[in-house]
């Protein structure tokens, strides 16, 4: 019971992060049928922006831990959103009407560019978030002492996901985003500026990825220039698990993957942690290629 609760809460904390990153992949895919391979690196960038802000602004001297975390996340979201917007302008928009492969190559190039740029600026070794920003206390859950930080992680990602869900489903612009994902030409005939919607997607997705980056820094305390690769791959798996192009699917897929991975590490073998995640991916691709919630056959190629 103790082990189960520990792994469940750990899995939820990590799964929330996967879900936040997965949303960026799935939203871009839903609109452009493009895998934004640079998305994992935008997540990393968020972690580094957060670290730089934390140190240079001396936030920790003035605010309590929770407020520091919140401010950092919001600021990193804004900065990464700007980078995401530029990425779309520079690397994807000029290739919108060309061969699909060109956009894929451009995405891979952007990914290499970002991870190398981060390595050049911050160095190849891992960087450390100052410890003790978030409370390290434990909370007794059914008599089991669970670190409070896990609740904060899951709460933070759940809050962002609720905001996104509200925006997509309850606002005029959110409805326009869904329309563009269904049929771009029909959306244009409604008077929707499809280019602005695509730009908006490249603000929102990277912002969520950037938030996840800061959360990882705060949670694990250590960040590396290439961590976007493994987190990105897991999040991409989560997006496919839930049904790529499907927003609730990415949320569910991320959380499920986090929990499956944590349980697998505990009850099967920690050495198999990554293998379990990818076994899940392969099983999904074989038995339910559209993912758990993906009813729509996304492939319109």
């Amino acid at each position, binding site marked *: 019971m103790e082990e189960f609760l520990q792994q469940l809460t750990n899995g939820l904390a990590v799964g929330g992060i996967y879900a936040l990153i997965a949303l960026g992949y799935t939203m871009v895919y839903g609109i452009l049928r493009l895998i934004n391979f640079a998305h994992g690196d935008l997540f990393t960038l968020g972690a580094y922006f957060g670290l730089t802000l934390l140190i240079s602004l001396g936030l920790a001297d003035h605010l309590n831990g929770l407020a520091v975390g919140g401010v950092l996340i919001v600021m990193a979201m804004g900065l990464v959103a700007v980078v995401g917007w530029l990425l779309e302008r520079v690397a994807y928009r000029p290739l919108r009407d060309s061969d699909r492969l060109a956009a894929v190559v451009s995405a891979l190039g952007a990914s290499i560019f970002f991870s190398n740029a981060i390595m050049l600026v911050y160095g190849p070794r891992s960087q450390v978030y100052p410890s003790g920003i978030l409370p390290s206390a434990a909370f007794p859950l059914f008599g089991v002492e669970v670190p409070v930080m896990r609740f904060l992680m899951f709460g933070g990602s759940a809050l962002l996901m609720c905001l996104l869900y509200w925006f997509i489903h309850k606002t*005029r612009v959110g*409805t*326009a985003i*869904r*329309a563009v994902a*269904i*049929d771009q*030409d*029909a*959306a*244009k*005939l*409604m*008077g*929707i*500026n*499809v280019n602005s919607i695509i730009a908006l997607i490249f603000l929102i997705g990277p912002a969520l990825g950037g938030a996840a980056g800061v959360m990882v820094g705060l949670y694990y305390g250590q960040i590396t220039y290439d961590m976007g690769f493994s987190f990105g791959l897991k999040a991409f798996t989560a997006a496919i698990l839930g049904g790529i192009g499907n927003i609730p699917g990415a949320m569910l897929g991320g959380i499920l993957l986090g929990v499956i991975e944590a349980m697998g590490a505990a009850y099967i073998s920690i050495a198999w942690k990554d293998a379990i995640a990818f076994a899940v991916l392969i099983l999904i691709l074989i038995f339910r290629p559209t993912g758990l919630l993906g009813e*729509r056959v996304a492939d319109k190629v």
Partner: protein
Amino acid sequence: MKDTSPYLELRNLRVKYGNVEALHGISVRVNKGEIVTILGANGAGKTTTLTAISGLVKPSGGGIFFEGKPLDALPSHKVVQLGITHSPEGRRVFGTLTVRENLELGGFTRRDKEQAAAILKWIFELFPRLEERIEQLAGTLSGGEQQMLAIARALMGEPKVLLLDEPSLGLAPILVRSIFDSIREINENGVTVILVEQNARAALKIADRGYVMEVGKIVMDDNADALLANPDVQAAYLGGGA
């Protein structure tokens, strides 16, 4: 009497798909308040003509003018803002959105809430079925209901000119009648209509004037009554005698 000042005009319009020219320089003139129908067999270029007006495809030559100003350099969403809305071939409703959401999107460029409510009221008078199905997903509607929704959605944009691409396609005869009645009523409310149809007889009955297209060219244009009475039109498009 209908105003006859030039309103929407296609001048020698050419459109290419890759290297293949689909419109070989067509000229069409639509006066304010008219219903103009464009007839022709499959592949004649009717849909291309409408998508060029809406800016979904760009002309390779000639021009499109609305109220005297060129349209052909504008992106589609600007054309909608100017008051030209389009109910496309095959309806293209957003199937996983509700009827209400589809209608809201139709009014995307119009921000006046009271005006939108008034149009919605009118739409529910035209198509009471839509009000009954307002919270239903558009993809679950019947073909006829989807066609009503596609037209209603275009009306939500408060059009000065409404482009309709084969609104009767695939509908039962009784529904075709009611759709054409609605088009006439929309026109009587001051909306200029360009109606692309394969159902030539029904279209000519409600139209003021008509153009006949064959493989990317206009081969005939006349008043609707004259076209209905024309033996060539009867033979080719009205299935023999009228």
